[in-house]
């Protein structure tokens, strides 16, 4: 099991906290003393999934490293909305350089800290690199692949909202098939991203056979925190991809951010799993299986599939992709890890 669920206590471990649990069994986010790495006043849109995912992940990393952490940020929404000169929302040591070099900057910082630490200067500070899917799967891919290949001691976190949202919702190589963006045939008889393109970064990371690869969503906090903490227990290159809905780019209601992540996982569209040294070690099982339509319908980027004549064939292809995830990552197999 990815996370040992707490035996029945009213809400078990589904909710953020639970007054019936011992304090050490509660989530980082339930703590009144949590870091709040990404503080109030940031300029993210209403209901931003990335802002939520970033606080979840970095707070957990801060807890795991007892506050000895540096974060390196790629250009993107997260950087722009959190740090417009001269303000910042970050309450941790944080650096931004360029769009594409995040993994390389993180590698350099990790190396510098290693040297200093070896000389007896400073503490064993850990490094997290973070960015959106554009900065990760497209522009920063070369640097990231190099960081994996050298097995540099960095945890790279990708907040995946499937597009360049900051600059006006352009397609990235993580945009799902059939999703309409500003650059994927926004008009015409068959708008939306073509099938058969793009890349699934967690699988590419596994192909590098790095120590730890995981996926998570903002709909399952306990699982996300567990994975970040586990990642910090490894040395070497680690990669976590977090599914973060974007109300603006997806055309969804701001209140539905967590619901959409939950539906992505429950439909099999976004597989939630972990892998070590290239091998799948466990997956989060689907609790209440739903057809992909339930995930697609609340999003305007898929609205063209549900017009007067529904695009039955396209929906079936998306369902087939979800079904393949279910098979490939054993999302329904209760016996498997």
């Amino acid at each position: 099991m990815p996370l040992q669920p707490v035996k029945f206590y009213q809400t078990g471990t589904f909710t953020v906290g639970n007054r019936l649990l011992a304090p050490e069994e509660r989530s980082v986010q339930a703590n009144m003393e949590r870091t709040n790495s990404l503080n109030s006043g940031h300029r993210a849109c209403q209901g931003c999934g990335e802002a939520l995912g970033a606080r979840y992940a970095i707070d957990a990393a801060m807890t795991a490293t007892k506050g000895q952490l540096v974060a390196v940020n790629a250009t993107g929404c997260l950087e722009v909305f959190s740090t417009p000169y001269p303000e910042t929302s970050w309450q941790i040591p944080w650096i931004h350089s360029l769009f594409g070099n995040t993994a390389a900057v993180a590698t350099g910082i990790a190396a510098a800290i290693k040297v200093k630490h070896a000389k007896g200067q400073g503490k064993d500070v850990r490094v997290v690199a973070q960015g959106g899917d554009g900065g990760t799967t497209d522009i920063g891919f070369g640097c990231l692949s190099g960081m994996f290949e050298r097995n540099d001691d960095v945890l790279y976190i990708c907040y995946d909202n499937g597009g360049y949202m900051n600059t006006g919702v352009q397609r990235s190589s993580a945009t799902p098939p059939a999703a309409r963006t500003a650059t994927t045939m926004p008009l015409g008889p068959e708008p939306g991203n073509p099938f058969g393109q793009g890349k699934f970064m967690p699988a590419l990371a596994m192909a590098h056979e790095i120590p730890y690869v995981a996926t998570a969503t903002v709909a399952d906090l306990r699982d996300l925190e567990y994975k970040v903490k586990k990642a910090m227990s490894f040395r070497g290159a680690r990669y976590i991809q977090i599914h973060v809905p974007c109300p603006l780019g997806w055309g969804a209601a701001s209140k539905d951010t967590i619901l959409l992540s939950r539906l992505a996982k429950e439909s099999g569209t976004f597989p939630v799993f972990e892998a070590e040294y290239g091998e799948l070690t466990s997956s989060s099982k689907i609790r209440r299986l739903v057809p992909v339509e339930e995930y697609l319908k609340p999003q305007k980027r898929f609205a063209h599939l549900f017009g007067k004549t529904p695009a039955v064939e396209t929906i079936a292809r998306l369902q087939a992709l979800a079904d393949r995830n279910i098979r490939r990552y054993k999302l329904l197999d209760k016996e498997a890890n």
Partner: protein
Amino acid sequence: MDKPFAITLDPGSSLANHTGSWRTERPVYVDRLPPCNNQCPAGEDIQGWLFHAESGNYEKAWQHLTKDNPFPAIMGRVCYHSCESVCNRAKIDSAVGINSVERFLGDEAIKRQWKFSQAATDTGKHVLIVGAGPSGMSAAYHLRRFGHRVTVYDAGPFMGGMMRFGIPKYRLPRDILDAEMQRVVDLGVEVKLNSKVDNILETMKSGKFDAAFLAVGAHIGKRAFIPAGAVSKIIDAVSVLRSMENEEKPMLGRRVVVYGGGNTAIDVARTAKRMGAEPIIVYRRNREKAPAHDFEIEEAMQEGVMIKWLSTIKEAGDANITIEKMELDDTGFPQPTGEFETLEADSVVLALGQDVDLGLLDDVPGLVVTDGVVTVDSNMMTGHAGIFAGGDMVPADRNITIAVGHGKKAARNIDAWLLGTSYVAPPKHEVANFESLNTWYYADAPKTVRPTLDIIRRQSTFEEVQGGLDENNALFEARRCLSCGNCFECDNCYGVCPDNAVIKLGPGNRFKFNLDYCKGCGICVAECPCGAITMEPENI
């Protein structure tokens, strides 16, 4: 200030940026009324006491429960728990076993000898209560806690009223009843048994009472005319059940015919079965139309009680009766068919409902009696100022929980009346319906089934049929509560806010919104498991 090249400003925190100004709607914490609380005739705060039971603090749960109802061990056995029929959890798996947890708390209280907190300072007022049944003793308890002196008169030899003389032991063991009655007495309530009040005004005058609450119940069995032979034995159900409490048990014979389809008919038939008889219930309509609760009919049939549906008694002979088959017409009323049948019968027990003995109310000015029951206003006061009434003697459904509720309501109004004010009930919150919940967050947990006595012992002894929960499964059952409409501090709103705009105030103090930064996205509302947050438009 020395600054690096091209830097002109000091670094600042984004806290200077009040994103709350973006908002068009604001989240607001609310307390909605859980459907169970809304349903409870005794006005219990069920979700409230379950909240304490969930953390294993049973004494606090019991204290919270008994603010409204002093008899949880009795209720946990004989209440028809209509709360469970409206429980939102029923739409997920099955209703929370509220009744079984209530019984567990009541039994714990007896076992551990928990006491009510002491009464308020003495007010110097003296209230007369007539009838030591559920309604009278409930009123006595509440009035005593308000600080009034209370004296209860009862015509019978024991406290309990219909709980003792109407409910068989196999449903309510007498040591449980005695313990919960005695606890009220221990609060400083004076009870005078074997003291029938013949004239209410005279008793009030001679005892210098400031107010009175009447709760004499309905103890006179209704009769129906049945042509009968000289030696045929026809008795009423209330007499049978009452004489079960005496040394001399009623003589019913082997073949006992019980006439009626209500809970009393079932109680008499099951009692007769335990005394070795072969009871047959004769009822003029069918099972769906019978006023008895279906689970009681089921339990009776399991124990071997026979039931003749759609039948009326035409004639009673010395050792047999003649019944006529009926059929329901289009409006659901039974019509005779002209088909007859003869049944062996050593006795016929009439369970056709009960009337109220209103003898004590002769010549009370202003008091109105309609259809054999006393008219009361919305404050439970009769037409005569200072005389209140409740329970089976006023127009309402007749059961113990309703009677207990009447006692509480009357006590609040008597208290206000004595102080020269009037009681105004606080406004009811909006009911927390199923749609307001986010059920994803509740762990899957099927209902705990209470143990049932094996069938052989149910047919031959008066041992309690339904067992109780133990501490482990009572805790489990309490934790199945969804806490509908009331914050149970799951921290979801505190966690899911992308803007860190929810302030956690610490255990027991819930949360508040930081409206300087709340952008009004509504995620907290969508992800609140129990529907305790709502969105309200901003005035822009």
